[in-house]
């Protein structure tokens, strides 16, 4: 079944997969917009890898459907696979062959011209190492070679499982720059599964958070952050008294060492609310040394949704 949804690169509806009694993926309905960078988050065992394997047609769903570039994966696996480049946790490189030879095997199976190898090696900055045997590669080099292989043929969708694994800080920064540029430069949609929330926050336009096989949060990252509301940190002379005063007037505040953290609802104007709080404290004679607006981090969003009970 072909689905013509021009704005979605990946879509699933009620995708479910069991392993025996364990429900690994529990009715996931995800929506990855075309040309987005979708951060796929969740703790170990949350179902990220199983979902990616379902999207790659490596596993069959017990229920639900999945479409890649509008193509039903269960019905047309090969056609859907043509739209995807994947970097999996297990790279699957042949250690007895060089990096270039490894890429060439894949290029031939994809029916691509030889020039593709040089292109992807250049993009990933691996041209200088390509003639070395993969057995002699560092983990970071394997990771970059994996990305190069995923990019063979310039597929419209990239699925990257922990792409920054094993990279040094410079390598992580390079990877970040490369991934960020892909939607703009090549119209690519990138699905990144990662544990590094800070990294995902810097590149992702959209996120999906999995918890125990269920998609508990999904959407545009900026909108999700805005929905949570705003936080302001106040460095005050007497935090205990300041906290009590603010509570008494109905402000949602908490203490963080010597600072007071005030949380305002998304419906409130943060400027007005901050002004009201500082006015109250000043009138009551509490010294205020600094007022710092705090951005809601992806980490806060993640913990709020991935561990709702904590």
């Amino acid at each position, binding site marked *: 079944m072909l689905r013509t949804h021009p704005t979605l690169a990946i879509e699933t509806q009620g995708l479910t997969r069991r*392993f025996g009694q364990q429900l690994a993926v529990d009715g996931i309905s995800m929506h990855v917009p075309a040309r987005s960078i979708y951060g796929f988050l969740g703790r170990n065992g949350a179902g990220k890898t199983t979902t990616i*394997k379902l999207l*790659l*047609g*490596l*596993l*069959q769903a017990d229920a639900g459907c999945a479409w890649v570039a509008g193509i039903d994966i269960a019905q047309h696996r*090969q*056609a859907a*696979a*043509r*739209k*995807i480049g*994947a970097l*999996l946790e*297990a*790279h*699957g*490189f*042949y*250690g*007895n*062959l060089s990096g270039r*030879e490894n890429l*060439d*095997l*894949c290029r*031939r*199976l*994809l*029916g*691509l011209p030889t020039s593709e190898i040089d292109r992807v090696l250049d993009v990933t900055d691996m041209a200088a190492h390509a003639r070395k045997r993969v057995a002699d590669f560092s983990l970071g080099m394997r990771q970059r070679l994996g990305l190069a292989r995923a990019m063979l*043929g*310039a*597929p*419209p969708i990239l699925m990257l499982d922990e792409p920054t694994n094993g990279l040094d800080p410079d390598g992580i920064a390079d990877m970040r720059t490369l991934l960020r540029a892909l939607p703009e430069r090549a119209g690519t949609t990138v699905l990144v599964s990662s544990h590094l929330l800070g990294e995902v926050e810097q590149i992702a336009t959209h996120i999906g958070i999995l918890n125990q096989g269920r998609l508990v949060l999904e959407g545009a990252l900026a909108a999700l952050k805005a929905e949570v509301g705003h936080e302001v940190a106040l460095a005050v002379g007497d935090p205990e008294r300041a906290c009590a005063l603010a509570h008494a007037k109905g402000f949602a505040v908490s203490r963080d060492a010597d600072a007071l953290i005030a949380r305002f609802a998304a419906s409130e104007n943060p400027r007005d609310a901050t002004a009201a709080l500082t006015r109250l404290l000043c009138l009551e004679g509490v010294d205020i040394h600094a007022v710092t607006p705090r951005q809601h981090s992806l980490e806060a969003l993640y913990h709020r949704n991935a561990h709702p009970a904590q």
Partner: protein
Amino acid sequence: MTTLPTPAFTTALAVEACKLRRSLALLLAGVAPLLIAVFVFFNLLQMRKPMPWTMALQSAVGIWAFFMLPMSVTALTALIAHTEHGPRSWDYLRALPLPRWHVYAAKVVCALAIVAGMSLLLALLAPLSVQLAGGWAPALAATGPRDIAPFLLLLGRVFVAAWLLIAMQLWVALRHASFVPALAVGIGGTFFAVVATSAKIGMLLPWQLPVNQLASDPQRAQLTLLLGALGGVTVFVLMLWRMGRREVIN
């Protein structure tokens, strides 16, 4: 990305052959026939009287069919399968936009081609070692006609009779990521083939089918040849069907 046609099976085959570059499987393919040739050379030198060419060459085929072929196939199929099990490349291969049976069928053809290559290498090295032994000790030089055609025909029959054995060993090796099941089946099969050589039921044992090509009873040789060939083709087809549909869960 432009829509490209699915590459032909020959592409998967060429890719599979490339993976064997600098691999242990190719090393094994060279070493096993060489060991037989070395044995034949020294065996001739320790004889008290010259041996006929026919017998010398048949002894090489005997060693090959009886022991070295089943053991080599065990090791070879395990090494071929380990090309993917080792780096855990099944997921990547199976996610590619090509029919999955291409991947497995390419391995089948490669395994058969390597065993055929080993047979050809033996066909070259065995007469050479008999010749060298004669040159080293002229008194022990092989006698009688140097009839190579029956020797080649016998090697060919041994190869075809081994298809069932190759199919079974390859299936077990591809199915299990660990070396242990494939080695256990191969060593166990060869062991029973060796200790029960003359058993009537032995002609049904896949590991004993090749050596049955040397049987004095032509009917037994013919039956085991058919069993090896047809059984091999059947098991290969079943393997492609089953492995292509199987989910690989790491």
